[in-house]
Each structure stands twice: as structure tokens, then as C-alpha cells.
């Protein structure tokens, strides 16, 4: 099989390049559409080679406040959600590794069962709205569905079991460190790889979440980047409607609505493209550890 390998190598490169083109093409199309003149889009459609390069769409979105506000909401939710989630997840995972803890089996089942059976959207929605009145609050973006997952608890517990020797913890106890002190000052520093992995998966989940906005948020105050994009997907005029107040009625006709949508999509996608090379390692680790059970 080594002898005629040249042919195979060429074939493999051709097929993989083809796949790469399929991946890159729509993304490039979107970027090009965002820097096309609106009149060209209307006349010739979205093109890879725009006739006139035009940054009007970006001028519009950056001169108007919605995008900054949406970014702020997304960043706040991602940071707070990820940090809180990692703390809650690691604490309960650690508890599940304490030798001889009474009720450990029950606790373990309590966590696992949420992976096997769920009430689904209707009861969840009704209870979050009617019992916890979460609609149109920042909590709606943080808690329902995504905050802590049983799956992450399971992989974190396995990591603790395999990587934290009980003897170290025991000697710290002898030295008079409290259990919380041991957890925060010894267990967590020894667990950086798993924290990076689940922290990254969580951050990605929060960054890309749009469902909680769709279910629970109508107030413009809590519109995240994904929610803003979602609103504009179904309603081209969404942003121009919210611009009404700041712009005179005469300027309204000149708003490049098609270009603006694409520009906002690019701005929403940009952090991923820029940061991807730096976190690819953690991402792939997260996928491998989660591939079977995820």
C-alpha cells in the first residue's frame, strides 16, 4: 500500500480541500456581503467579489448603541455564568469523591437521573416563569437549562478520582486547613486542566446561547448578541425600528438593512475566529472527553 501512495495522498488532499472550501465559502460570502454596497446587493445579490467595497453597514452599527449593549450583555452573562458554573460544578463533583460520605450513592443518583429523564420544555418554561418569575431578568440568561450539567459533574468527578491523591488532602487536614480551604487552595489548583476544559465548554455555551433569550426575554435591555441576530433574522427591520428614535425619519430610507444584518453576523462571529487558535487545544480535549457520553 506504500507503493501507490502518491495517488491516495493526492486524492486525500483534493477531498479535504473540497471540504475546506465548503466550510469557508459561506463564511467568506457573509463577510463579503457585509462590505458590499447596499445597492449592489439588491441588484446582484450576495457576491464573493463585490463591485463596490462599502463600509456603510459597519458605520451604522457602530454609530448606534444596540451592538455595544448586546456585547456587554453577552460578555457579562458569559463571564458570570462560566465562573459560577465552574465553582458549583467542581464543588458538587468533589463531594462525590469524598470517601465514606453518608448519602453519596443517593447524591450520585440524584445528579445522574437528570441526564436520563427530563420534564422537557413546557414544564420547565412554566416553572421558571410562574414559580420563579424569571422572565425579562438577567437570571433568565444564566440559569435555565445551561447552568450546571450532570455530564460535566461526571467527568469532573472522574478527573478528581484519578488525579487528586487522598493522602495530600489528609495531610492538609492534619495541618488544620478547613474543608473549604482544602477545596479552594489545594483541589482546584491541582485541577486546572479539567477546569479549563469544562470552563471553555461552558463559556462557548453561554456565548452561543439564544434559546433562553427566545423563551424568556422580550425586554430590549437584556438582548444579547445572539438574540439581536435572531431578532434581525426574522425581522429585517428590527434594528432600523430601534434606530427610529435616534435618526430623523428622512435618514430611514438610507439604512442598508441587508448589509447591516450581515455586518452584525460578522461582528458576532469575529471573536470566535480571532480566539479559535488559542483555545483549539481545550476545545478538542473537551470534545474527546465528551465524545462518547456527550
Amino acid at each position, binding site marked *: 500500500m506504500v507503493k501507490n501512495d502518491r495517488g491516495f495522498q493526492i486524492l486525500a488532499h483534493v477531498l479535504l480541500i473540497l471540504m475546506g472550501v465548503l466550510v469557508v465559502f459561506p463564511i467568506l460570502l457573509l463577510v463579503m456581503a457585509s462590505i458590499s454596497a447596499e445597492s449592489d446587493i439588491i441588484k446582484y445579490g450576495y457576491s464573493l467579489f463585490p463591485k463596490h467595497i462599502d463600509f456603510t453597514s459597519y458605520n451604522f452599527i457602530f454609530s448606534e448603541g444596540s451592538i455595544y449593549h448586546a456585547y456587554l450583555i453577552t460578555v457579562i452573562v458569559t463571564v458570570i455564568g462560566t465562573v459560577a458554573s465552574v465553582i458549583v460544578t467542581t464543588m458538587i463533583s468533589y463531594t462525590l469523591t469524598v470517601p465514606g460520605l453518608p448519602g453519596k450513592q443517593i447524591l450520585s443518583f440524584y445528579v445522574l437521573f437528570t441526564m436520563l429523564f427530563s420534564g*422537557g420544555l413546557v414544564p420547565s418554561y412554566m416553572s421558571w416563569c410562574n414559580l420563579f418569575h424569571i422572565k425579562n431578568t438577567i437570571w433568565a440568561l444564566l440559569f435555565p437549562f445551561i447552568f450546571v450539567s450532570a455530564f460535566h459533574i461526571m467527568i469532573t468527578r472522574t478527573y478528581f478520582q484519578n488525579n487528586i491523591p487522598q493522602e495530600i488532602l489528609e495531610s492538609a487536614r492534619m495541618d488544620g486547613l478547613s*474543608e473549604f480551604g482544602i477545596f479552594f487552595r489545594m483541589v482546584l489548583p491541582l485541577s486546572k486542566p479539567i477546569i479549563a476544559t469544562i470552563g471553555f465548554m461552558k463559556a462557548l455555551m453561554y456565548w452561543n446561547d439564544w434559546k433562553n433569550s427566545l423563551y424568556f426575554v422580550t425586554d430590549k435591555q437584556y438582548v444579547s448578541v445572539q438574540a439581536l441576530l435572531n431578532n434581525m433574522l426574522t425581522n429585517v427591520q428590527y434594528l432600523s425600528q430601534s434606530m427610529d428614535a435616534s435618526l430623523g425619519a428622512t435618514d430611514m430610507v438610507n439604512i442598508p438593512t441587508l448589509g447591516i444584518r450581515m455586518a452584525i453576523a460578522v461582528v458576532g462571529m469575529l471573536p*470566535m475566529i480571532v480566539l479559535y487558535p488559542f483555545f483549539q487545544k481545550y476545545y478538542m480535549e473537551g470534545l474527546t472527553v465528551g465524545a462518547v457520553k456527550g
Partner: protein
Amino acid sequence: MSKTNAFVKIKKYFPFYLMALPGIIYFFINSYIPMGGLILAFEKYTVKGGIFRSPKVGLSNFKFLFSSADAWLMTRNTIAYNLVFIVLGTVVAIVVAYLLHELKGNLPRKIYQTIILFPSLLSIIIVSYLVNAVLAGDTGFINNYILIPLGIDPISFYSEPKFWPFILIFVHLWQMTGTSCILYLANMSAIDSGLYEAASLDGASRWHAFINITIPCLVPTIITLTILAVGKIFNSDFGLFYQVPMNSGALIDVTQTIDTYVYRGLMNTANLGMSAAACFYQSVVGFILVMITNHLVKKLSKENAMF
């Protein structure tokens, strides 16, 4: 004696229970209360009665649901799409993993893998924009730069159901192949290279080595992943079926899944009962499937079973 003993024990373990408490409370609110809320499927919801005290109506929500055409349609779509995703997804993932694995040189492999993996980082909203840029009736790429130049009438994709099974399958593979090939790639790296050398000495072609060595080594993983996917066959990616077709009413025959039905019902209070019934149907059948499939996985490869 035993009293002080118990006291010592509680004092010793108390900090741990405290650590577990936030998680316990969260699961109670996010998972266990909604499980109880499944009772909504047997009620006619009223604001006054709330989730637990609305008037009970027995099985009438289910009767309405299963006497409508919707029940069959959404069940068919959910299962059919999932089956195609499982079969095609596995084949494409293995082929791509094989190509990457056999490629000479680390740098090209890394570059290809980085590109193929990228779409999985995008939210389905962004994906919907990408699909729209390609397919939009008036401004889309396909109509303006392929069909019209070829002298073919432009297609208004968002009102033509016949294209959507292909579009949705393509979009799913486009987004998911990068992640699903990672595990197969890891599996292939673990295969003993001596096997290939021996095969090559015996004059086996690359194709024979692939069929007789690579595939058999992957079988346990393929079976496990397939069974686990079958356990989720009643669930669908809501975004893919709701956002990517831009919630187009004309496409409902080929885009309605259980998840989209439940959401649409939830947003329309008149249909809340049926939506709750569909949700109950999904939860219970899903639970049974997960239990069965986990049992099967446990028999095949213990370490991959969930419990």
C-alpha cells in the same frame, strides 16, 4: 455514645454537604420541579390554578394530539432525520477521520482539521445567516450566480419543501463532521501500526487494509456511539429545524419535529395542552429509549455506559 458519634459525623461531613448544596438546589429547580410539572399534560392550564392545581382533564390532551396529523408528522420527521444523521454522520466522520489520519505531514492535517472543526463553534443563528446568504430567493448566491447565469429560473427555496431534507442534512453534516470525526481519529491513532505493516508485506491494498483492519478496530466505537444516538432519537436540534428554515410555514411538512411542535404550541396559549402532551410523549419515550440503549451499551462496553 451513638448520639455524640452521630454529632461528630455530621460535624465532619457538614462542609461537604454545604459544597454540594448549590448544585442540589439547582437540579431541584431546573430538573426535578419540571419533572413534576409533566402533570400539565393532564390538565387544562389556568393562570389561577398554576402548574399543579389546574383542572384535571384526564387524557383529553393526548386524544387531541394523537388524533391530529401533527403527531405522526413530527414523530416521522424527528426519527427519520435522526436516522439519516446517524448513518450519514457516521460514514462521513469515519471517511474524514481516515483521510486526516493517513495524510503525510502534521501541518496539513492540522490545517484541515482546524478548518473542518470551525463550524461547530458557530451558533445555529449564525449558521442560519450563512444558509440565508446562499439560498435567499432574491439576493442569495445560488440564484444570482449559479441558476440565473445558467438560464434556469431562480428557486424560492424558503417556500419549496422538496429541497429541505437535503439542505438540513447538509447543514447538519457541515456543522457536525468536525466534532464527530475527532473520536474516530483518536481511535485510529491507537490502532497497532504493526497490523498495517504486516498487511502491506502480504501485498494488501490500501482499500483492503481499510476494510479489514481500520473498520474492524473502529466497530466497538461505532456501535457504542450509534446506540447512544438511538437513545436520543426522539430529540432534535431545535435551532436546525426552526431557525435555519427561518420558521417558514410553507416548509412545515419537512421541518416540523417534536421540539419545534412543542415550542410553537407553547407560544400559542390555545395549544398549551397539546404542547404539554407532546412534551410528555417526548420525555417518556425518550426515557424508555435511554434506559434500553444504556442497557445495551453496558453489555457491549461497560466503560461507556452512563450508569
